[in-house]
């Protein structure tokens, strides 16, 4: 596969890992947050942590949309699914996310009409094909995914489609990074920046991280060589005492982002005054809602959404894990009450949540004994 296989070249991976080891000063501990769940996934999928020296610690950040989605929002969405005549559509990622009365898959087992879609346009197509039904699209995701919802809504308006609406849970990454940086127990040294979000927003919005907080951030791709090269760039910045925004993923990310995508976001969405993030609490101006012009396609305005709030059990220490204060297994519930099959806290929900990733790839290995066999 072009643009994939080159960046998985074993010889270059070993070289890049050697370079990370060479650059990491033995007298220093490095805490580097990969903001994006896609990076968390890649790090475990390719076994990259095992290639790093012990003093380069990767902290798995808040960039997993299903992880940070409060359970109440899932409950609200599923309340819509139970309305007569409604077809509830969502990405595969959402299908196993637990609500108070079970996941979308469990609701489906009980008879609710729930369909998995690959694209919001597939949900729109479903609405066109079933004029007697109302199709709700349960939208999740950061700025990468939000433009696709925006274009879908623009198309729905253009078609005058009356039986389609969006339950919008789109969030924005910058306020979450700022919330983490402002947290008094924050101990991060640098950030691996979210590559695919940056295809839309570009690199400029990260400048405050470098300028105001003095932390390096390198916008990174998702192949093993991308992640390792980003770590090399970060370690070089730290060694030189620099804090800059750098773009490791220039083959995909333009510095200015995607202007048509930004214009579509601007046309369709506005910022919510505040939104709740699982594990981080309420963050102001951190999520999107549909503008008044799109009220007709806004599930929250077309239907009586209950507005449920569910708080996570106090014992779940998702926030501390998100901020890098605790490692996943240091949480009291990890691996006992909270497992990927029965998640209690946000970060166990999706396979790219920090805790689920850790559980799948590390905890089992540790439980099974040593790696050397």
């Amino acid at each position, binding site marked *: *596969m072009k643009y*994939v296989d080159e960046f998985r070249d*074993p*010889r270059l*991976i*070993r070289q890049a*890992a050697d370079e990370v080891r060479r650059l990491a000063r033995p007298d220093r501990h490095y805490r580097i947050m990969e903001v994006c*769940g*896609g990076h968390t996934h890649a790090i*475990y*999928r*390719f*076994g*990259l942590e*095992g*290639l790093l020296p012990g003093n380069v610690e990767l902290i798995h950040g808040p960039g*997993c*949309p*299903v992880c940070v989605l409060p359970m109440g929002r899932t409950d609200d969405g599923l309340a819509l699914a139970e309305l007569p005549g409604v077809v509830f559509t969502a*990405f*595969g*990622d959402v*299908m*196993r996310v637990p609500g108070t009365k079970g996941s979308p*898959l*469990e609701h*489906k*087992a*009980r008879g609710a009409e729930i*369909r*998995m*879609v*690959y694209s919001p346009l*597939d949900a729109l197509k479903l609405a066109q094909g079933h004029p007697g039904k109302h199709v709700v699209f349960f939208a999740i*995701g950061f700025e990468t*995914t939000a433009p696709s919802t925006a274009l879908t809504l623009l198309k729905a308006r253009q078609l005058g489609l009356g039986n389609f609406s969006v339950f919008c849970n789109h969030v924005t990454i910058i306020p979450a990074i700022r919330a983490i940086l402002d947290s008094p127990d924050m101990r991060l040294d640098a950030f691996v920046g979210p590559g695919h979000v940056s295809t839309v927003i570009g690199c400029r919005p990260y400048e405050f991280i470098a300028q105001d907080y003095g932390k390096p951030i390198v916008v990174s791709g998702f192949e*093993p060589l991308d992640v390792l090269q980003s770590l090399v760039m970060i370690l070089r910045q730290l060694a030189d005492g620099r804090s800059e925004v750098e773009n490791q993923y220039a083959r995909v990310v333009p510095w200015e982002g995607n202007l048509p995508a930004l214009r579509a976001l601007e046309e369709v969405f506005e910022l919510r005054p505040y939104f709740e993030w699982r594990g981080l609490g309420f963050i102001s101006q951190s999520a999107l809602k549909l503008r008044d012009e799109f009220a007709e396609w806004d599930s929250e305005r077309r239907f009586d959404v209950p507005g449920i709030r569910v708080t996570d059990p106090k014992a779940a220490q998702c926030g501390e894990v998100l901020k890098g204060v605790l490692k996943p297994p240091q949480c009291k519930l990890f691996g006992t009450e909270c497992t*990927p*099959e029965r998640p209690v806290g946000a970060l166990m929900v*999706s*396979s*790219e949540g920090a805790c689920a990733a850790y559980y*799948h*790839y*590390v905890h*089992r*290995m540790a439980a*099974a*004994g*040593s*790696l*050397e*066999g």
Partner: protein
Amino acid sequence: MKIAEAPVDNAPALPRVRFRDARIEMSHGAGGKASRRLIEGLIAPLLGGPLLAPLADAAFLEVDGARLALTADSFVVRPLRFPGGSIGELAVNGTVNDLAVSAAQPLALLLTFVIEEGIATETLEAELRAIAEAARRAGVEIVGGDTKVVEHGKADGLYVTTAGLGRADLRARLSPRSVRPGDQVLLSGPIGDHGITILLARGEIDLEADLRSDTRSVYPFVEAILGVAASGLRWMRDPTRGGVATALNELARDSGLGIVLHEEEIPVREAVRGACELLGLDPLHIANEGQFLAVVAPELAEAALAAVRAVPGGGEAVIIGEVREQPARTVLAAASYGGTRVVDMLVGDPLPRIC
């Protein structure tokens, strides 16, 4: 009829009912962890007798000195026909393969059809022809069965359930407990063709690829291994639902040993890889209908591999990994650059990801 003692390995003490899920969901049938919970937590405790081997592919009975293998299976697939096969062929090959990976020569099948009212005769006829042809190719007789018609909307067109009878090959005694560190893991060919073909054939995600289901009898390959390496053959499984990852995790669990896969060695067709990258799926979790895994003693592994490769259709067989003492009860995939990851069992159905 005299019923022989069950093989020791297949008769664990019966567990208590400990299935806590309130409802049966699709995931309980998907071959992964939820399926295992249902079988071990509910079905086995209530139906278990000394001969029940709920997680083996076939049961063995000794009848007047002959050792027979008995298996049952059921087939539910949407759409009924897909590139490379149809429900009828799956029913024959799936049943034959359960016998084959139990080291039994398939002899006879019983087939039961549950037919939905309104299905076109043409459709049913096409399936019957597919079944007859698959049975001929696999060298098994269809010796009986049953037919039921249910109301419209109740059976997705057609369900097929089967029972299969085979003659156990006395040269091999397969059991996860006989697997030893150092044993090699042989895979018969590229993985994921069937699962991805079905996913695409459903048309829900609008992907197009030139892929065909791999449905076929694997008995010719098994026969070839038995001919040269029966004494070193420890365990076999056809990695259907849940894929290679699930089959090997079951082996790791049942043997108490670890399995280390050389990830780059595992054959995956380009289009299967493309679909998996696009949808965020792991090829190791995708279903196969014409492949099998065999664990062979190290000194006989090369002979077994050569024997499989010599059979037409076996040219892509490969050794994908080996059994180790540690990490116990775990499957690892190791990359040549030194990275390792845990390969887990599938939880529920494989769902495309966007994150």
